[in-house]
Structure formats: C-alpha cells, structure tokens
C-alpha cells in the first residue's frame, strides 16, 4: 500500500476533538499536530515551500466539508458521461506529472473530511431520487479514491452506504493497491472498483508513488475473486515511440488475470491539460518528455494531441479490447462530439458493437 510521507497534521478546530479525528491521529502518531481555524493557514505554510505542489502532499488537513456531492463538470464542449462526484478527500499523495490537480488545487493540503454523518445524509437524499437510467457516483475526481484508505477507512463507509441502492453505481477509482478493508466486507453489486492503467515505464516515469502495474492488476484480480466488478481507465493515454506495443501488453495482462465479464467499463482519454500546467509540470518533472509533443489548443482552451492522433490512439486501443470481447465496455472521457462520432462509427463498422451511449446504460 501507499507509503504516506505526511510530515505535519493540521486539525480544523471544528473537528479537533471528535472521535473520527482522534482515530486518525492514532494512526499518525509521532507527527506534529496543529489546530487551525481554516485551511488558509495551512495553504500559507505550503506556499512558502520551493515546491508548493510537492509540499501540499506532505501536509494532512482534517476538516469537515460543507457539502459533498456535485455533478462532475466534465469539460466545456465535451460529451459528458453524467458522473457525480463525492468530494470526500482532496488532493492526493501520489505525484503524477500530468495531474491537473497540480494547478487546480492551489496549495490545498491532503484534506480528509471526517463529518461522515453529513455525507450519509446527503447520500440518502441523493439516492432518494429515482433516476431514469443508471447514475454513477465516485470519489476519484479531486483525489485518488483509495490512496488514503488505510488511514481513513472511507472505502468501507462508502461501500456500506451505497449497498443495495438500485440505479446507482459507486466507483472507487485508484492507482494504488487494494485496501484490506474492502476484502473484509461482503462485496456490493453496485460498487465498482476501478484502476487507472498505463504501461510500466509510463507508471515508473510519470506516476510517482503509485502502485506498479502488476500490483494494480493483482489488486483488480483479487477484487474480482472477492466478488467485486471492476473498471479500467486508460487516461491519460500517452503517445510516444513504441506506445502501441506497450499498451497492447497492458491490455493482454488485464485479460490474463481478469475475466471479461467482471469488467463493467473501460474509459479512454488522451493527454490533455490547461496551458498553465505545462510550465509548472516541466519545472517539477524535468525528466518527463510528455509535454514535448505536438498539441493543439482545443475549443475549451486545453492542449490536446491533434484529433487524427487521438483517433488513432482510441482506434488502436479499441481494436485491442475487441480482441478480448471487451469493445462494448469502452467509452471516451472528455472528448468532443466529433471524436465520439468518428470513434463510435468506427467501432460499429469494424467490430460490430457499439459503445454509445455508455456501457453501463446498455
């Protein structure tokens, strides 16, 4: 599991004396603890470090959230997948060179909310809606769903809160291993554990601190053996010399361990980022080559690979998955209507299956 490098714990005064906070502190014995009024005090300390982003991952802020659930904003001009996010933790102990949170979170420390009773109430209200189709909800937008789990035990709470809620799928998305807690409870049919995957050398070079591919796949296989269904995210797919063979090997290794029926969805998304991430990431990851590529500035202002290349990446990966009968589990993440259209057309024509609208709705 993740080795946490937390050097200081900051407690929001409002939750300083609560039972969940005390429990957390027991697991963080030996670290200096300071009680503060707001997160701003922590952010100030972080801003003074030479590498504020790296520093933010070494400070843990225990607090309460005002509200947890919101619709995923997707990206303007892209086809949204109707995802809902739960902002239970913010920031992530891992350090990926392409991570948008580097820019997005502005010196926010690793933040853990402990007012789970409020989340339970929000979830109850959320589940009381009767959606027409399936609604997906997950914690992996502003954090890694499982990276802090040994500390927080949030996955256990979430699985139990979402169990048997028809019409809803809870996704816990991660680049870490499998928390023991999830193996100690009965799996829930509507809980999907998912892993973001990339070839081993990409993980080694660009995803600092995360579990290696082997560990992620073993975790997924163990989850499936225990009775969970799983998902995979190929996001961001990176383009570099030899990418095809590398990704082919990853796809092969998935199905060597995991039966296709246990896979609920597979998302494909290629590298994209806002322009101001580039100088920051280049500075933080001087050995990374991912920003030295041909990009276009898309309608929503982000840099992306040119469309012909994105289509090639998606098309090739779709072909690889179809070999294993998993072509119908695919969907694109944050892509334009044009790319969706061309991608699904190709899938329909070439592989006789359709990924549109979305695999979990079919």
């Amino acid at each position, binding site marked *: 599991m993740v080795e946490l490098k937390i050097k200081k714990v900051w407690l929001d005064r409002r939750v300083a004396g609560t039972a969940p906070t005390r429990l957390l502190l027991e697991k963080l014995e030996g670290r200096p603890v300071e009680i503060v009024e707001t997160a701003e005090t922590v952010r*100030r300390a972080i*801003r*003074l*470090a*030479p*590498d*504020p982003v790296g520093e933010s991952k070494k400070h843990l802020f225990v607090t309460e959230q005002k509200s947890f659930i919101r619709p995923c904003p997707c990206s303007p001009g892209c086809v949204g997948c109707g995802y809902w996010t739960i902002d239970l933790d913010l920031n992530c102990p891992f350090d990926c060179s392409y991570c948008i949170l580097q820019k997005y979170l502005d*010196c926010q420390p690793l933040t853990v909310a402990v007012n789970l009773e409020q989340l339970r109430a929000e979830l109850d209200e959320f589940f009381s809606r009767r959606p027409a189709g399936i609604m997906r909800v997950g914690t992996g937008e502003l954090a890694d769903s499982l990276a802090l789990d040994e500390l927080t035990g949030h996955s256990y709470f979430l699985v139990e809160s979402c169990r048997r809620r028809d019409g809803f799928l809870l996704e816990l998305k991660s680049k870490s291993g499998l928390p023991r807690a999830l193996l100690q409870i009965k799996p829930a049919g509507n809980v999907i554990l998912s892993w973001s995957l990339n070839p081993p050398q990409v993980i080694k070079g660009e995803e600092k601190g995360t579990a290696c591919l082997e560990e992620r796949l073993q975790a997924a296989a163990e989850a499936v053996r225990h009775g969970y269904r799983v998902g995979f995210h190929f996001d961001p797919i990176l*383009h570099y010399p030899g990418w095809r063979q590398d990704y082919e090997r990853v796809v092969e290794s998935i199905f060597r361990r995991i039966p296709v029926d246990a896979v609920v969805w597979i998302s494909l998304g290629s590298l994209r980022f806002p322009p*101001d991430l580039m*100088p920051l990431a280049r*500075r933080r990851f001087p050995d990374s080559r991912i*920003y*030295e*590529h*041909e990009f*276009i*500035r*898309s*309608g929503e202002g982000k840099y992306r690979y*040119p*469309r*012909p*290349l994105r*289509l*090639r990446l998606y*098309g090739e990966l779709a072909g690889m998955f179809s070999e294993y009968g998993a072509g119908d589990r695919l969907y694109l993440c944050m892509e*334009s209507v*044009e790319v969706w259209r*061309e991608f699904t057309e190709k899938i329909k024509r070439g592989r006789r299956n359709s990924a549109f609208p979305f695999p979990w709705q079919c």
Partner: protein
Amino acid sequence: MVYRNIKLVDFNLDDRRYRFTMNPADRRLLRSVKEVGVLQPVVIVSRHSRPVLVDGWRRVEAALTCGLEELPALEVATTNDDLAVFLLAFFGNYGQRTFSLAEKSLAVRKFYEFRLQAVDLIERILPLLELPPERRMLDLMLEVSVLEKRFLEIMHRRDWKPVTAELWLDFSPAERTWLYPLLERLTHNQQREVIENFHSLQKKIGRSLAELAREGELAGLIDRLLKGESGAADCLLTAIRQANSPLLSRINKAIGEEIKRLNLRGVTLDYDRSLEKPTLCLTLEAGELKELRQTVKSLSGSLGSGGWHRLFELLHYEGE
C-alpha cells in the same frame, strides 16, 4: 522630511540602490521641465554624507538634459534604514502605473537585499505586484533581476509575462545571446511566440538553438530577419510553428493543395486548421443570379472528381 533645493552636482547618481523603475524621461516630461523646471520635489536621503536619489529618476534625468542646476527635494531622515527608504520609493511609484515584469523583479531584489523577510515578500509584496504569493515566484523574480541589463530592458519594453521569462531563463546564456538580436526585431507577441516555439522545439528534438538555426529554411529566415527584411518575422514564426506541429502542417499542406487543384471559381473553401472539426465551410460569391447559377453548376460538376473525396479523407485522417 525636510524640503530644500539641492544642486545636481551634489547628487551621488552612481548610487542606484533605491532605483527599480526603468522608464526614461519622455519627450513630454523634457518639454515641461524645459518650460517650467521641475515642480514636484524628488526624494533623497543622505548616505555617506552625499544625497542619494530615492525617487524621481526621470525628473533628474530631464533636469540634467535641460541643463538645470538645482532641484526641489524632500530629504528623508538619515536614521531611516534602507528598507524603510525603499518602501518610500516603492509606494511613491506604486499606483501611478503598472510595473513591468523587469521592474517588479528589481523591486523584489531590492526588498530582498534590504532584508525584508521572505515570508513578507511572498505574502505582502508579491500580491501587490499582482504575482502569485508563492516561493517559486519569489525565486523567479530574484533570478530575473540579475539578468543582463539589455535583457531586462527588452522585457521591460515588450512587457513580458512571467511564463515567458521562465522559458527565457531555461535557455543557456549562450542561447540567450544568440536569440537577443532576433528578439529586438520582434513585437511583443512575436517575441513570446518565438521564445515558446524555440523552447519547445529544442526540447522536442533535443538539439541546441544554434544547431537548429543552421538548418536550411530556418537559417535563411533568420538571416532575412537580421537583415531587417519586412515580413521575415512572420515567415520565421510560421516556419517554427510548422516545425513544432509536423502532423497538422503536413495535413494542412495536403488539404491546401487539394483545394488548389479543385480550382473552384466563386467558391471559397474554409475549414478548422486545428482539424478539431472535420468539416468544410463553403462560401459562394455571386453578384447576380446568372453568376450564382454558373457557380453552383461548376461546383456540382466538380463533385464527381476525386478531389472532394481526397479532401474529406484528409479531414478525417486518422494516424500519427
């Protein structure tokens, strides 16, 4: 503060410890000083028994140019330390105009050298300068402040933003020296683009700027730019952009050739050069019905040719 007139010869103008502004005296100021002299007192402080200028560099420059002998001055008590005096210089200018990045860097350097704590610099001064209150920005400003004077001047004149300065610092001193004469011939936007594109091209292909510049097309264009040929700057930019974007350049070139081959009269074809939208936009131009009929007829006649097919294939091209 004490008000008095001071002789220009008494100033120690070599002592520029409080100077961070970079604008020279302009024609308007020179004319006004010539006509009515310096009205607004400059600010001075005595150091080593000689008056040192705190604020009013442009006025002093204008007075010298106009041959004045003395100036009105407000003298700050000598007991004030350099930091306190510099705060006067800083706030004397603050709010009158926006500082350039080069001036901001010099101000930050002064505060730093006058021992303002890093935390105060980050939390109090950087926001005043509209810079993010982060350690990294402080470090960047300190790095910029010690660049060669000619580089600071070009940054000042062309109003660079921090990201451009950061890329600039990423070039080696030899590369900066090589780039400098090119930049001098470019506008603000062109400078930014040339720096960004050269930076990224160099990173992509892993060769030095000098090597890149010796290569065929670029070498010729750089030569033309240095000779002051009009239009050379735009051509150079197009060439570096294309070198940075080989896939799109190739497809766009092929599309351009197909459009030319179609040789349509009265019809303009346009499309999204980034190829995000794989569609063509056709504009028909006609002054009268007869002309429109002819245009439509020749357009529909052309549809049978393979050109249109190739054009759409290119728009939908999928590959590396």
